[in-house]
């Protein structure tokens, strides 16, 4: 039943009560991410990208509207261990080693760590942190920490993956490398992925569709389809089609 592992938002609104005003973070947003698709969310600050992600993870409740993750309410899907998430900041626990940080979702979900030792070792290898299993986050560089967070997001073999600007803190070179890695991981796992990003090139390179959002109130402006063939190689960054798609997204961002 692959069709039930998608992300579906139906007329979702979320408002916050400020000191004197009501801030409409999301206004009547509907979005359907089919199972196995890769969707990128892009938009100016305050357009509700992160709010959408938080709502989808059950970290917050919509003021109105419905959200369906793999055919369930967000809270249920999350408790069933169907989702994985990497936040903007690695958000590692400074007292847990690399291994233990990756195993954190298992501890929360009450799964036996011993069943996953192989999986954890495999993920550490995948993100290129072999030899750092016992290191504490304070001993790692920013890029390494972010890779731990990616490995942590993947440890439960999620059917739905949420990424909130996971490479925002990385330099451009490392970012490109991580984009390639992410594409490979996604193609292997077939997880429905929602990526929040600020980078137009990143969005176009990774996604099947780029959802361009507008702010005040936060809403979906335009959806740009990215028909580039997979797997996309680094060379694609320099092609005219790629630039044309980038321009299209940039124009949508400007509100044309």
């Amino acid at each position, binding site marked *: 039943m692959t069709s039930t592992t998608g992300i579906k938002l139906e007329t979702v609104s979320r408002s916050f009560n400020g000191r004197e005003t009501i801030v409409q973070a999301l206004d009547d947003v509907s979005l359907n991410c089919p199972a196995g698709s890769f969707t990128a969310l892009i938009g100016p600050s305050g357009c509700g990208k992160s709010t959408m992600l*938080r709502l989808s*993870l*059950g*970290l917050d409740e919509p003021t109105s509207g419905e959200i369906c993750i793999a055919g369930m309410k967000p*809270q249920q899907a*999350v*408790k069933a*261990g169907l*989702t994985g*998430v990497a*936040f*903007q*900041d*690695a*958000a*590692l*626990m*400074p*007292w847990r080693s690399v291994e233990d940080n990756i195993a*954190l*979702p298992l*501890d*929360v*979900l009450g799964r036996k760590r011993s069943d996953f030792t192989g999986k954890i070792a495999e993920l550490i290898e995948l993100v290129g942190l072999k030899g750092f299993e016992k290191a*504490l*986050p*304070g001993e790692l560089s*920013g890029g390494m*920490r972010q890779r731990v967070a990616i490995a*942590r997001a993947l440890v*439960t073999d999620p059917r739905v993956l*949420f990424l909130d600007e996971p490479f925002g803190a990385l330099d451009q070179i490392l970012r490109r490398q991580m984009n390639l890695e992410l594409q490979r991981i996604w193609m292997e796992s077939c997880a429905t992925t929602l990526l929040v990003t600020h980078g137009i090139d990143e969005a176009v390179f990774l996604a099947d569709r780029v959802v361009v959002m507008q702010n005040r109130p936060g809403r979906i402006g335009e959806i740009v389809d990215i028909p580039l063939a997979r797997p996309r190689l680094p060379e694609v960054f320099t092609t005219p089609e790629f630039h044309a798609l980038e321009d299209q997204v940039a124009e949508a961002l400007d509100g044309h």
Partner: protein
Amino acid sequence: MATKTAFGTAKRATDFRHWSAFRNAAILLVVWEVLGRFKLVASGALPAPTEVLVRFWQDRGDYSAHILATFQGASLGFLIGNGLAILAGILFAVSPVAARLGRGLNVAIFALPPIAISPILVLTFSGMTPRVVLAALGCYFVTMSATVTGISQTDRRMLDVVRAYGGGRLALLRLVEVRAALPAVLAGLRVAAPAAVLGSILAEFGGGGRFGLGAYLIGSLGRADPARLWGIGLAATCMALIAYGIFAFIEARLTRSTRAVTVAATPLGIRAEGSFLSTVVITLASIALPFIVWWSLLKVLGTPAMIAKTPAGVFDYLFLAPSAPSAQSRMIAALTQTLPMTLLGMAAGLAFAFALALATVVRPGIVRSFMPVALVTQTMPLVALTPLLVLLLGRGLSVILWITISVTFFPAFVTLAQGLGMVSRGALDVVRAYGASPLTQLRLVSIPASLPYLFAAMRLAVPRALLGVMIAEWLATGTGLGNLLNQSRGYLDYGMIWSVAMASVLISVFFYQIVIFIERRVLGQYGMQPAE
């Protein structure tokens, strides 16, 4: 390589600091020795360090029993007080309603001058219990608020990760908050350890038991033997310092793996406010709670009503009984003596601390070596050393003022200096980049930035000032509330003992609330958060 160099410089700086601290301590000891040897201070009231040590050696047979007794009271109180404090802290951090309900009780415990309730405890309990209770009370507030702070300042991003996998309240506590709060809790324990020693000694002042450093100090007060008094003071200080040092060591070992590696970007959540009615109900309940606890404790303990006065009993004594007018006039007379001294001492201590803390910004070198001394004094059971100050300053009114200044100055200075040390480099660099002089830097950055810490220091100083004044009155001058308490103890005037205790707690809470009120107004205007 850059990190290596930075580390090297930092190491050299600490080496320098240690060295200059040692140098200053050595100079101090030599001056002290000369002053003592030639009896230059108050005709021999300040004995030379060597004389103190010789006397200590001669008395060594006495010390073990006294130290052991104080240690027992302090350590048992430490365990009980901190155990309750951590549990309460977790409860308050998890449930905002519980925190608002417990506020009245917490403020009352924070503000109560231990000396005021020590006679009550000695009357109500027997044996070690008064010491344990006072030591526990001394620990409670520090550790409770450290726990709350530690838990509520947990990095929200870590909490989000756990919540994103469906982690509930318990999972958050177990996997993140308890561990994240550990350094804060240990910092609380570090401050609570000397407070427990102080609590035990103060309870020993109030009577009950032959052994204990406090009992030894009071017993030796009349014997014109300054060297012995200083020896006892030294022993008490060492106990407090060792207790402080042990937890400082554990804290330093553990903190390294807890410090967050990046700065949290998301602001703290806005506290959810209930309806007006529920706020009023909770506030009233919070004020009533201390009285309910007081009343029910007496009921549970079954203390005879003659000795143990309930809130109603105190009201009856002060306003309804035939002797009420006399009680009232004695109380008012005592208050008119105590209150001005408290305010004056507190203002002077705070002003001095603020001036010196600002001086640390302009001339870091001069005061840097003073900081270790101030930190050591922080852990000294300064209030318990009042007899030494009486020895030095006599029994005039000035002794009250000096004791009050000394007990408010050091904590205020440490709070302010540490607060000023946290002023963002960036903010200072901006004004420096425009060539601002040290004074301009003070005016534009350091003073405004230190406001939250000034208020934090004031909050800290209020109960300490009252405690200092009352102890000085009790032990030295024979005036005011402290003396009234001591006299009533002698006359077995239970009604007055309870009345003085309640009055001192109420005064302390009242001034504390005034500080909080002004703090909220002023900081709110500048968009600042109160400092913990």
